[in-house]
């Protein structure tokens, strides 16, 4: 193989036509193993979900499942909850995470604080899942640290009676454990790009802190911030592990409904329903990610 590749340079035109064709396409052989793997485990599954949403059990074109999903009150409620949780945690996560990124970014560039924050955020944002549920239960659960503390000192407060533990409020709190670190990871490079010279220039022209943020800081950061917000929204919308390990009864959000429709244990195995619900999720995520890509393109133009 190495010989073939080595010869692709000059002088190849002198050889035979068959060899030339081989040379032209031989490079594509190198992509084949990757393409085979991707086709089986990524492209085909995606296609099967999208096409399956429009089929009935016999494989015929059928819109009945999709229609029933759209008209069902319980499916719609779960979908609205999903959107609601994603919006709330994306707003809270992006604001808090952005402030945190700014605070860390203005510190020493190679400092220990920064390194620890990066690693810890990586763990919480990308590894969390099931373990965050147990972290959350150990903190706010009936026997948790915060709960015991509040029972002792403020027994009538919100935290002393965690009736919200397994509901929407609880999901929002536990999701913030990975949303804030993700925002930190995504937004840190952007705030690192705020040049101190800009601040100096603003000060030199007589602007104060407020002026600097209103006229320079916030306008410069806004596209990146909105992009990161969308990424957080998609992240929370797609999340399954944390919710699944926390909520054992009922399907309050769409990912839990999908797993319910897939599991044969309850006798409710319904692949067509799972595919229709999946299609609804994919539509939302694709829209959000498309907007994100558009924003990123503007940002990267500016950053260059």
């Amino acid at each position: 193989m190495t010989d073939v590749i080595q010869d692709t340079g000059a002088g190849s035109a002198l050889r035979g036509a068959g060899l030339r064709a081989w040379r032209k396409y031989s490079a594509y052989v190198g992509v084949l193993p990757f393409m085979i793997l991707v086709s089986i485990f990524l492209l085909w599954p995606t296609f099967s979900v999208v096409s399956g949403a429009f089929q009935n059990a016999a494989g015929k074109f059928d819109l009945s499942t999709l229609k029933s999903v759209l008209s069902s009150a319980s499916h719609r409620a779960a979908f609205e909850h999903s959107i609601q949780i994603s919006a709330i945690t994306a707003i809270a996560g992006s604001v808090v995470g952005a402030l945190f990124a700014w605070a860390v970014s203005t510190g020493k560039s190679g400092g220990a604080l920064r390194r620890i924050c990066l690693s810890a955020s990586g763990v919480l944002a990308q590894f969390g899942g099931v373990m965050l549920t147990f972290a959350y239960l150990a903190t706010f659960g009936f026997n948790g640290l915060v709960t015991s503390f509040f029972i002792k000192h403020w027994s009538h407060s919100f935290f002393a009676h965690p009736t919200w533990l397994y509901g929407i409020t609880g999901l929002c709190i536990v999701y913030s454990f990975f949303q804030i670190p993700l925002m930190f990871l995504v937004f840190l490079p952007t705030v690192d790009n705020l040049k101190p010279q800009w601040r100096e220039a603003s000060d030199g022209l007589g602007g104060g802190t407020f002026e600097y943020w209103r006229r320079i800081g916030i306008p410069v950061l806004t596209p990146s911030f909105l992009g990161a917000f969308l990424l957080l929204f998609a992240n929370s919308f797609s999340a399954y592990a944390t919710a699944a390990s926390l909520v054992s009864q009922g399907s309050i959000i769409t990912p839990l409904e999908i797993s319910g429709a897939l599991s044969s244990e309850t006798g409710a195995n319904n692949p067509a329903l799972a595919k229709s619900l999946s299609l609804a999720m994919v539509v939302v995520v694709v829209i959000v990610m498309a907007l994100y890509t558009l924003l990123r393109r503007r940002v990267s133009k500016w950053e260059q």
Partner: protein
Amino acid sequence: MGTMSTANQSLGTKTWRRAIIFFVALYLLLPIAAMLDFSTKSLSGKRGLSSWRAIFQQPDLISAVVVSLELAIIVVALVFFLIVPTVVWVHLKLPKLRRPIELICLIPLAIPGIVLVVGVASIYRWISIHVTESPLMLAAVYSMLVLPYTYRSLSAALNSVDIHTLAEASRTLGASTYRMLFGVVFPTIRAGVMSGAVIAIALVLGEYTISSILNFSTMQVEINLIGQTDGFVAVAISLASLIFVFLLLVVIPTTVNQKNEVLEAEHS
């Protein structure tokens, strides 16, 4: 007057900085402290390390951890020997395929894990009937999940150095393709490949959605199962694995920093 106001601002900035770091760190460390507190408690109310000791008395958990580690190794091998060479190959030889490959690598961001599992369920049913029931087959779909992350760090590394010039320079100096790839291209993108690989390990060890729905017993599935019977032990395992992956990730920033320093030196 001017110097006075900047001094005041920096004092104000400092106060804000510290307050923000303090509160966010408190919010994120609180659960960790709570886990430490919870895992040393027991139903009888006595303090002790019994939950921590119980971790090693769970044969199902140990075998699930082994499965997860094996999966992580296989996925990293797929990243090193399949994904990285393919992306480099496309960069150097098939510029026409760059956009399509990039799009493919970004698909998993648009397809949530719970949706992907709906699609691959039938494939895994077929595999378990006709090929093998080994949970290690999960490595194939896991390598799809890590695509966006490996691709992003890889393409950043490939774009930051002018890989074409380097490749051509080594070719002109008489290097073989093998020498060009392993002597020139891979060492230059090593930091990017490494950070992609560590993210891949974290993702595989933390993966729950696909394995739980396909009924494979991985580390997360087992932790969740233990949590349904013994919350104390589950909290102890969770804390242990969070710390383990944290220590693993502490390794990347050093390599990333080195890379940035190289880049900054080049720009200046």
